[in-house]
């Protein structure tokens, strides 16, 4: 008599190519191999579609055929398969895989582009919180600014790349027809203060400033951590409040 635990493990082996699961299947019309292939196909196509939904810009950038090929190759490796039934949280390893996947290896910028897209995906489903506005600070005593701790919005994700991802995104979005890829870094913020995810491109100094805030430093500590000569606090805070970057504030003791 069949043991369910063994049968389910054998199905996993069948997904990886072992044919012994076919022995469980009753012979009746279509072959066990064909019957089993419906399940294997449903799994592969379902997971490929889940990746395409998470990484639509990557699909756009390298084309559907290439992206589908990368997805199917990714899905052949067991560690890449989802661990839970919540597919919304699955697929973070795909950008690393693109780095190793021979057909896309020459596109050095592609893994970072996909990593940014993953952060965009994370921002989309992050916890909702109403961001702070300038109005929330209007009655604050100036002497308290030094002690101010600004908590970043739950949807805020920062990313730095050695490649000009802003240029690449402009091409994918159709804002420009073609580019000569510049040799420079880019700094991005993916955030969804309300219902729409936005990508903002930051200066290196603003990126550093926000990194300090993100690790829990106070406003004054963040300012002390960067090169003040290149930093425009008023402009950076205005940008932050206009784009919903802060969700709460507190004071250091």
């Amino acid at each position, binding site marked *: 008599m069949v043991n369910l635990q063994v049968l389910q493990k054998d199905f996993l082996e069948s997904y990886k190519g072992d044919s012994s699961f076919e022995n469980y299947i*009753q012979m009746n019309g279509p072959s066990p191999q064909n019957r089993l292939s419906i399940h294997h196909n449903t799994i592969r196509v379902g997971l490929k579609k*889940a990746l395409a939904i998470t990484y639509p810009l990557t699909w756009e950038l390298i084309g559907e055929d290439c992206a589908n090929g990368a997805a199917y190759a990714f899905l052949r490796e067991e560690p890449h398969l989802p661990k839970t039934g919540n597919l919304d949280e699955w697929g973070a390893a795909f950008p690393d895989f693109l780095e190793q996947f021979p057909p896309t290896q020459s596109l050095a910028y592609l893994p970072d582009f996909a990593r940014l897209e993953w952060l965009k995906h994370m921002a989309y489903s992050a916890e909702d919180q109403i961001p702070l506005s300038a109005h929330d600070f209007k009655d604050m005593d100036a002497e308290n600014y030094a002690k101010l701790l600004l908590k970043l919005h739950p949807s805020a994700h920062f990313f730095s790349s050695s490649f000009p991802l802003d240029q690449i995104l402009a091409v994918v979005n159709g804002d420009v027809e073609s580019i000569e890829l510049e040799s420079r870094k880019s700094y991005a913020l993916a955030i969804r203060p309300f219902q729409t995810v936005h990508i903002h491109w930051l200066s290196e100094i603003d990126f550093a400033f926000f990194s300090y805030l993100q690790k829990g430093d106070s406003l004054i500590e963040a300012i002390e951590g960067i090169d003040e000569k290149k930093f425009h606090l008023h402009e950076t805070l205005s940008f932050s409040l206009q784009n919903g970057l802060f969700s709460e504030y507190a004071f250091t003791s």
Partner: protein
Amino acid sequence: MESYLRIAPLVKLKPSNSHDLVGVGLRHPHYSYVLENKPPLGWFEVHSENYFMKGGPALHFLERIREEYPLSLHGIGLSLGSADGLDKNHLRRLKDLIYRFSPFLVSEHLSWSRVNETYFPDLIPLPYTEETFSLLAQNIDEAQTFLGREILVENPSSYLEYRDSIFSETDFLASLCRKTGAKILLDINNVYVSSFNHGWDAGAYIRAISPEFVGEIHLAGHSLRTFEDGSVLRVDTHSSCVCDEVWALYHQALQQGIRAPTLIEWDEEIPDFEVLMQEAITAQGFLEKKEVAYG
């Protein structure tokens, strides 16, 4: 299908008897249409896992739609048939979602999807054995106890049967209902698809279902898969209109006294909402015992 559409009028789809409610599976391309047009449907159903996130537009839309309509949560990832047991984190998220949206129905499948911490996005059939029965009864009981409510269990579309099965699917489901207090989500398209794939008598399958156990009915379309050797399987793709044979089985189910909220499902190649609405109107025509033409 035209024959049904001519007969079934544009009626209000909010009858007073909740058993006669007709609903539609809500998918994201239709959020805005539903909110703007408030179609006269009895309810909507969504896949629970599509709303497991912490926040964002999908939850926002669902909250707005829930303000207007009763809602059912239909799970595809709990894997009631896993020998490894239930994923507690998944169950906790489902409970949170139930708390947030107060669904009038919560359902899952007679299948498994997870082994060795690997999840397959598929509803893989189970062998109908004593061991599977004990495991499912235990897992359903655990789910119902944790969620604090009854769940419905859907009969699967299956493409393979196991040599070691000793129970028919209908006997297995009925015994599970008696043992756990769960109800059946009777997917009539699945009955038709599985019957074709295994040579079962679909009419006999419906006759074997006791009306008292049925808590919901699903209707959907499917497609054909022809293999190189010429063999054919029907595949539950939810990518087309309900076929005439499935409407006939639905009619048979109603005639034998099965009355439960009915849902139109469509998940692939999703058409304009009006197409789903026409399917719902056809179902409503059957429920209101209007004359219908077959085939």
